[in-house]
């Protein structure tokens, strides 16, 4: 029979009000903002190949984001959401995982997906909701997902992926193959009830999961000062009895090292870990948002100065693993690749109309088949009104 409780608290005999800020959690950082390692630090063991992969992924994401924001402005896609300024957090953490580990994203982690090997073409097909999109054009742009790459399909409702990560990790623990789940979420999403559910369940069920909070200071227009009163998200980990690390989210080496340690704890000791990566959302929330309405240029500029890409570039330059020219050339290359794939993807038609009823269930129900037949007859009757699919019903 389970015992009621284990720990006996110490006794005090006068009212002791614990202050809301009783626990100050420091931030782990390896590189200063210019990319120079702090004195006497132990840098994580990263070989050149991995370092260059991390760097080129960062460069790619920067290009992709800038290019797609432009594409949205040109009306070529309906919506985009960039990770400008937060590339180190997603790419550094993804790099510390094993490929078999599951990644569950919020929506601003294209860096992790690219690191896993999602191709430019795959990005474009999703962004253009075309027939080649793995998601069959059903969700808005940036809702990527890929089973082959162990990257769970994004869903818009915030926070829902957090208890799901706990469940996924529980399954991994039962399977016993030494894999874990890393789940991303913003400091805004951490206000959702699902955050509380997922964190507490993970702590008590001891699952191999890493809860990676990207604290970028804003949830759309809401600054963190109106999101919460405490010292960010990290102290909540302790509230659940969960091991917790706060890291500089703009320092890719620190993020890498922190996630490596978290992964070790998760997989070897079944200790879930909360990581809070401190960063800043450099762009608007999405292409539907204009941040000038709610924050100052000065604030943005202060953070622009801490750019994670510049910081890592400087580090690699100093180390001699890249030179300016090659780096610029690589950037130019991905620019061209993005543009070429963009042009290709926008030519691909939408999925066939039959796809409208697939995947609601494993096989379409009788009623869905009838609805599809009625729809097709209707489209046949009014082909001009449904130009994207009328070809397919002829």
């Amino acid at each position, binding site marked *: 029979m389970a015992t009621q409780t284990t720990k006996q608290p110490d006794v005090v005999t006068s009212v002791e009000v614990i202050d809301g800020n009783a626990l100050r959690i420091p931030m782990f950082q390896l590189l200063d903002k210019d990319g120079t390692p702090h004195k006497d630090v132990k840098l994580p063991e990263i070989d050149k190949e991995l370092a260059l992969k991390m760097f080129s992924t960062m460069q790619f994401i920067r290009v992709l984001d800038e290019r797609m924001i432009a594409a949205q402005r040109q009306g070529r896609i309906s919506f985009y959401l960039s990770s400008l300024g937060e590339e180190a957090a997603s790419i550094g953490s993804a790099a510390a995982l094993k490929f078999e580990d599951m990644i569950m994203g919020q929506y601003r982690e294209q860096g992790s997906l690219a690191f896993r090997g999602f191709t430019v073409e795959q990005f474009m097909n999703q962004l253009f909701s075309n027939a080649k999109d793995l998601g069959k054009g059903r969700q808005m742009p940036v809702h990527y997902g890929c089973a082959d790459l162990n990257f769970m399909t994004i869903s818009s409702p915030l926070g829902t992926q957090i208890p799901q990560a706990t469940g996924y990790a529980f399954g991994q623990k039962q399977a016993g193959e030494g894999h874990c789940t890393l789940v991303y979420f913003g400091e805004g999403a951490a206000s959702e009830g699902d955050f509380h559910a997922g964190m507490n369940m993970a702590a008590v069920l001891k699952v191999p999961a890493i809860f990676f909070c990207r604290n970028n200071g804003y949830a759309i227009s809401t600054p963190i000062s109106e999101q919460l009163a405490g010292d960010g998200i990290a102290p909540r980990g302790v509230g659940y009895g969960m091991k917790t690390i706060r890291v500089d989210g703009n320092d890719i080496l620190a993020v890498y090292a922190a996630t490596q340690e978290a992964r070790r704890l998760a997989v070897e000791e079944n200790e879930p870990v909360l990581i809070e990566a401190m960063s800043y959302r450099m762009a608007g929330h999405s292409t539907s*948002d204009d941040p000038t309405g709610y924050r100052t240029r000065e604030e943005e500029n202060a953070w622009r100065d801490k750019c994670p890409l510049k910081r890592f570039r400087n580090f690699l330059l100093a180390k001699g693993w890249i030179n300016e020219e090659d780096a610029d050339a690589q950037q130019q290359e991905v620019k061209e690749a993005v543009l070429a794939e963009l042009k290709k993807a926008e030519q691909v038609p939408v999925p066939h109309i039959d796809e409208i009823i697939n995947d609601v269930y494993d096989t379409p129900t009788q009623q869905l088949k009838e609805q599809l037949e009625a729809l097709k007859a209707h489209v046949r009757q009014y082909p001009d009104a449904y130009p994207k699919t009328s070809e397919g019903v002829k």
Partner: protein
Amino acid sequence: MAKMNLLQAINSALDLAMAKNDKVSVFGEDVGHFGGVFRATSGLQEKYGRNRCFNTPLVEQGIIGFANGLASQGSLPVAEIQFGDYIFPAFDQIVNETAKFRYRSGNEFNVGGLTIRTPYGGGIHGGHYHSQSPEAYFAHTPGLKIVIPRNPYEAKGLLLSSIFDPNPVLFMEPKRMYRAAVGEVPEEEYYIPLGKADVVKEGSDITLVGWGAQIEVIEKAVELAEKDGVNCEIIDLRSILPWDADAVVESVMKTGRLVISQEAPHTGAFGSEVAATVQERAFLYLESPIMRVSGLDTPYPLAHEKEYMADHLKTYEAIKRSLNY
């Protein structure tokens, strides 16, 4: 009178309500300084202060839980849920708490002051999670009122009535009309009664029933049908709960035919309730089966949005099917 779009009409209703009664407050995600992602609460924080128009943390169950408590204290909270698709985390607070608050306490307490505003509906390339029409999920809940306006004029008058109605109201705003629908709207306050349908257009051959943005779709369908010489009556329910069955039944007794056109997926949509009730009360008057035009029974798709929707052509075809039965 002034030309207003639907957002401006809503903003005007909120502004007047806040000016009239200082127990009215407005809150939700991003509604404060920024004025909401659609800007419906624009300028209200400046005018009424951070205590009466403010951002909440990002937690819908908290927003409604908080609003329930605030209403039970005697205030008139107007809580915004940023998208109708994100109202489900608050489902328990709405269905188990808001709706049952007065009844379960024997009227010791109530949350009658509460109004929940949320944009709903498709046609904006929003995919699964920025397009749903969840009214039917709430219509099975005694204790709630559900109101959906079809244009700026209706929006303002119905929202003012909702805010000051002594019962909790879920006020759903057709977001694709936020800026698209523009009309003459009085600048001062006025009230449109809840629970009463509106005969948008009289006719004799067939009755069309809808609500919210779907009225526009129905009007387009009716235009086509009238070219065929069919004389259509259009009824805007305006309130989903309680709904004005008398008005619909009376109309169907006159026309003998009924088509319901609705955005939500077919099965379990509110049109089923309308059809079930009308066939019961107007059985002997019906000349053809009641037809429902609805979204498909799938999640709301992005690339196939056009095909998915209950548009004017599908509605027009249903009118023809009803007449040719």
